[in-house]
């Protein structure tokens, strides 16, 4: 059974300006139509295979993003949409932004752009589906889905060193 033939998407906005979110929603509308590939925008993390996340991470939604990622069942892929999710974007120097999404969860595909175009988002999702297939094959052989273990580094406010968890 090939899940990548019809993956379900979970979309979350963590401190983004909404430009990329509107483009993610516009990808499901008739002009770009992701639904013809069998993709549905679901709201339930336990139903989803692909996590589309926009915007950077700040001290308040760090736990929310980690909880959503932990609730999704394996195999799963994370696509960071927009430059704010890739590494902080224009807001890198702000006091409340930790950085891109890869500071709190492992990211598989980065889609740059401000705001990212729907065509780029479709390209990113297609690349993510190839990675999803590889992860599922590894799971069927009994291996862990990720090739290298990602150490969970959490940056505590006020301290300069990162603590390994």
């Amino acid at each position: 059974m090939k899940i990548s033939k019809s993956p379900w998407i979970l979309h979350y906005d963590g401190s983004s300006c909404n430009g990329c979110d509107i483009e993610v929603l516009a990808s499901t509308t008739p002009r770009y139509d992701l639904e013809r590939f069998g993709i549905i925008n679901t709201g339930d993390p336990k139903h989803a295979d692909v996590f589309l996340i926009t915007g950077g991470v700040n001290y308040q939604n760090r736990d929310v993003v980690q909880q959503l990622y932990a609730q999704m069942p394996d195999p799963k892929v994370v696509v960071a949409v927009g430059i704010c999710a890739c590494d902080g974007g224009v807001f890198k120097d702000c006091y409340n932004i930790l950085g891109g999404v890869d500071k709190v969860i492992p990211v598989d595909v980065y889609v740059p752009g401000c705001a990212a175009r729907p065509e780029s988002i479709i390209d990113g999702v297609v690349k993510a589906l190839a990675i999803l297939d590889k992860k599922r094959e590894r799971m069927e052989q009994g291996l862990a889905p990720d090739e290298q273990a990602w150490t969970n580094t959490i940056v505590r406010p006020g301290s300069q060193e990162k603590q390994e968890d």
Partner: protein
Amino acid sequence: MAFLPYVGMALKNLFSKPATESFPAGEREYTDRYRGHIENDIEKCILCGNCQRNCPSGAIKVSKADFTWEIHPFSCVQCSKCVEVCPVKCLSMVNSFTGIPSRSPARRRQRS
């Protein structure tokens, strides 16, 4: 009767072309002014660093010692401010994308 307006719309939809663009199967055409990515004609560049100082997100790094100019697409907001402030006009905004980059994607140009 209540269904008559919908009959008109249904017939129109049957015989007109689909509203969906055939991406990724087909090519996508961008308008002339679309802001895609920045290209540098490196032979004209004098490595003055004006673009680096004016970039709002710090995406450009110029190194006079190594004769390199590099741009990090993860930070570029496509505002074209660097194109406006360049004194020799070697930078230009191209209206297409280079595709999804890999993990360390800085685009480097080296001057001879």
